[in-house]
């Protein structure tokens, strides 16, 4: 069936989407783990502010999030200008900016999953590790991290899935430039905006679904492997 034979442009969009979703997921992993643990364990002033901040992309309409990103990370935005000037990182209208937008949108989902897992960790095991000489960093790497792996995997897949579906913030932040910032979602959106675009939109939707399902199944399999290893004592 050449119904599924992708055009060059579509290939580019698929490619780009995969790249953006993966980068968004991977880049938010470390901060996600950090913030998840901070929220689960930390007791500090401003914790509820941090918590609110993390949830913001969920609460705000994506377009607003996109505008905020544009204002902050745009070429003329305070952070954007700083990054461009001192680090040479330009986010606006680049795929990296799309990844940032997707990462930000998926961040609350990632953090929640990790936080739930951290809260479920039996801290007595961490104590046991410490009495055997493991420093906090090692305890984290050898005990906490393996035990929260299911939550991390869940958070990653949520973040990835969200990145696949996200377009509101992305299109607002970095526009919809084919080959640079046009993800599958944005392409689908564009097709829904013109007469006769439905068939193409449906086709792209199917492609997006197939990719996401594959990712989902991979994640389930990973979680299964992890789960088989971490059984209750």
């Amino acid at each position, binding site marked *: 069936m050449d119904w599924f034979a992708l055009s060059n442009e579509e290939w580019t969009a698929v490619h780009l989407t995969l790249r953006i979703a*993966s980068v968004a997921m991977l880049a938010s992993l470390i901060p996600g783990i950090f913030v998840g643990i901070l929220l689960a364990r930390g007791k500090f002033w401003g914790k509820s502010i941090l918590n609110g901040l993390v949830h913001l992309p969920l609460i705000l309409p994506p377009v607003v999030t*996109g505008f905020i990103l544009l204002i902050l990370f745009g070429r003329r935005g305070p952070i954007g200008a700083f990054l461009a000037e001192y680090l040479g990182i330009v986010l*606006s209208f680049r795929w990296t900016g799309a990844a940032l937008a997707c990462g930000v949108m998926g961040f609350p989902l990632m953090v929640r999953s990790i936080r739930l897992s951290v809260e479920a960790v039996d801290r007595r095991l961490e104590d046991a590790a410490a009495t055997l000489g493991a420093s906090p960093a090692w305890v984290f790497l050898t005990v906490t991290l393996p035990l929260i792996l299911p939550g991390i995997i869940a958070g990653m897949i949520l973040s990835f899935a969200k990145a696949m579906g996200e377009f509101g913030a992305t299109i607002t932040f970095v*526009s919809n430039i084919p080959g640079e910032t046009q993800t599958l979602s944005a392409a689908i959106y564009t097709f829904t905006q013109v007469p006769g675009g439905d068939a193409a939109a449906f086709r792209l939707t199917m492609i997006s679904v197939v990719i996401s399902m594959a990712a989902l199944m991979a994640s389930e399999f990973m979680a299964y492997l992890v789960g088989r290893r971490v059984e209750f004592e």
Partner: protein
Amino acid sequence: AAAWLGIAGPVATAQAQEKVTVFAAASLKNALDDIAAAWTKESGKETAISYAASSALAKQIESGAPADIFVSADLDWMDYVAKKNLIKADTRKNLLGNRIVLVAGKDKAEPVEIKKGFDLAKLLGDGRLAMGAVDSVPAGKYGKEALESLGVWSSVEKKIAGAESVRAALLLVSRGEAPYGIVYQTDAAADKEVKIVGTFPEDSHKPIIYPIALLAESKNPDAASLLDYIKSDKATPFFEKQGFTVLK
């Protein structure tokens, strides 16, 4: 696998410098894609067209988007960027015109005479009138203005279903959710599930205009050539095929 993940080897950045970047309202996609293809064929130069809501595009331009040409779906957003001196004023042109029409599901497609005080409320019965959101979507704004000037707005105000775009409004009619809708002629013509039952008089609303302009920050030498091409007669058939009126 690392290659496509990696920061190295971005798909388009290298060529993007040379590509002419157009920011255009989403509803122009069909026509502009065709025109761009034709121009590429003729000139051998590449284009990248970003379709989104005019509002988003305008704000992106404001924040320094690397675009060369802006085509807005209404005058308001073009004025917005113009006021900020972001366009080359001399290149601005009212490119296209459009009409708004009243559509109905094809099963009850009785023609309606649209004139002052026509009884739209009765036609709707307890159904709703689908149109673009009257405060935000351009087609909605024009529709509201037309209904006001025809003196029927107050009788249907409570029955409006404001959709997120013209396409969504059209879908509401074609799915039978709403018996009637107000959409652009261009969109109505392409949907076989709906019939145009009347066209709003041109004087019942501000003219529907898609303005185009070269952006002040555009550095791409080919941009002017593309702009000229879009303005030229060569582009006309593509626009007309989609139902636009090309303004001279």
